[in-house]
């Protein structure tokens, strides 16, 4: 079904799902929604599969017109969505009538909002995923005038309107440090460099996209390198470039690289990182592997409770 026409594409809007897994050995990043939790919730509100393709829109400016009656949801960042002449609901399913206009007016909190539609958006699966990966020529950012198609959905499956209770909504303006696991090349830095890394505040520089955050802040003292013989880059790797500043690698990052990695961001923090933007500040806090696994397990349980609640 024709779902929307794009009247304005905003700063960057792409189609994403949970990503393209297991292809790093072919030099293909995992891609997928930068805030996976909000993405999944947007789908759950519509009784979609977790992985149904949705729009990821960044900052502000996206404007859509419904081409049919569409049941949909918005989750993630608060980008001040308006439905015609009133604020649109967030974290809840709602309906747009043919001709209705949805517009994201102004970023209020977070950076990326997810717009899901019942059935999910219909774009071809490439290498097992519908996620856009711009550099790899898999999809492209959406442009003005494009028509978005949604996949068939059984309307009887969704009679009641689902809403995520307030207490389950993620905190997008959390000020806690980002928890990291040290290594694998933390031995390329002096003890003083490690100390700088763990006790300084870094500001996300304007050079920031789905591939990486560059940061500004105190230089980390390097003992050797920081060039290494190129090796694999895991999701959330914090590499340090020649200027001593940490660079955090995100979902569209290259699969391999030649800078020493001082730490890896704990998995549980990645959704939160996906909502950060230039000018935001970051502090890093070291945790051990067991703690990281405990946190990840708790997060999985929390999402499972949300699933139970919404089904």
């Amino acid at each position: 079904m024709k779902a929307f026409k794009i009247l304005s594409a905003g700063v960057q809007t792409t189609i994403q799902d949970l990503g393209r897994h297991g292809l790093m050995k072919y030099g293909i990043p995992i891609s997928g929604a930068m805030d996976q939790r909000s993405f999944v919730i947007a789908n759950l509100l519509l009784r979609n599969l977790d992985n149904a393709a949705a729009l990821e829109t960044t900052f502000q400016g996206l404007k859509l017109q419904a081409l049919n009656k569409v049941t949909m949801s918005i989750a993630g960042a608060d980008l001040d969505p308006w439905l015609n002449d009133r604020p649109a609901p967030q974290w809840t399913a709602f309906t747009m009538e043919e001709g209705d206009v949805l517009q994201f007016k102004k970023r209020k909190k977070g950076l990326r909002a997810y717009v899901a539609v019942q059935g999910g958006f219909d774009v071809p699966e490439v290498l097992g995923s519908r996620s856009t990966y711009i550099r790899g020529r898999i999809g492209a950012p959406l442009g003005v005038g494009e028509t978005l198609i949604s996949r068939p959905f059984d309307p009887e499956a969704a009679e009641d309107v689902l809403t995520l209770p307030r207490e389950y909504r993620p905190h997008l303006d959390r000020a806690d440090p980002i928890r990291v696991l040290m290594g694998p090349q933390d031995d390329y830095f002096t003890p003083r460099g490690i100390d700088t890394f763990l006790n300084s505040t870094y500001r996300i520089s304007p050079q920031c996209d789905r591939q990486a955050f560059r940061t500004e802040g105190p230089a980390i003292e390097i003992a050797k390198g920081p060039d290494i013989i190129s090796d694999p880059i895991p999701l959330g790797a914090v590499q340090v470039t020649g200027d001593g500043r940490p660079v955090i690698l995100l979902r569209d990052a290259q699969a391999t690289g030649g800078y020493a990695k001082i730490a890896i961001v704990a998995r549980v923090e990645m959704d939160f990182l996906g909502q950060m933007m230039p000018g935001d500040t970051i502090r890093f806090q070291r945790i051990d592997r067991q703690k990281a696994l405990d946190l990840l397990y708790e997060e999985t349980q929390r999402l499972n409770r949300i699933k139970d609640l919404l089904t």
Partner: protein
Amino acid sequence: MDDIYPTIREVGEDSILVEYEEEVSLEVNRKARQLAFGLEEGLFPGLEGVIVTYRSVMVYFDPFRVDADTIRGFIEEVNATLGEIELPSPRLFRIPTTYSPAYGPDLDRVAEHTGFTPDEVIQLFSSQVYPVYFLGFICSLAYLGGVPEGLRVPRLSTPRSFVPGGSVGFAAAQANILPVDSPSGFNYIGRTFVAVYDPKQFPPTLIRPGDYIQCPAVSEKEARLAGERHLGEFVESFQNP
């Protein structure tokens, strides 16, 4: 023997990095490829993926299914009989390439730097067979080694922000064929129109670590005609020199 390699260390929650000797050589890379192959063939429970680079292997696993010590055990088990692991036979991709001046922005500079004439540079580069160490970076970029000593020119001091996909070039001992338009600091002397990366196919490239690549010189017209053909049409079995 008192050998510290391979070193095995946990990375993040769900991966283990195995490193062989700290050097770029086919001998060390072969160990990494053998380990990766052995782990993939072993179908170990909980193991989710294996990535090879020059001298390292990253092993991904599901930490809620299997613990890191168990994965470490699998790695040690495979490493113990590494020498017996038979890798797939290497293949040679002969990818027609035009070295016409329009496609080689760095040809004259390479010639100047090495003391060869441009024709000698082309002759030397295009007759060489380059081993594939691994696939990585973006879009299945094949990391090639084996650039002849006399041709080894350093990277550009300022990388270009745009180099067209299909460009063929090198820096120091490394060579590559850019799969898509990219920034790069390599010296580019030619262009192929054969798609080395195609995300609509699985796998997105036919090239595997351990294969070999040659970029024989053809006319621009022949290079364009070759570009209408599939990468698989340019592969042959590789006879060790």
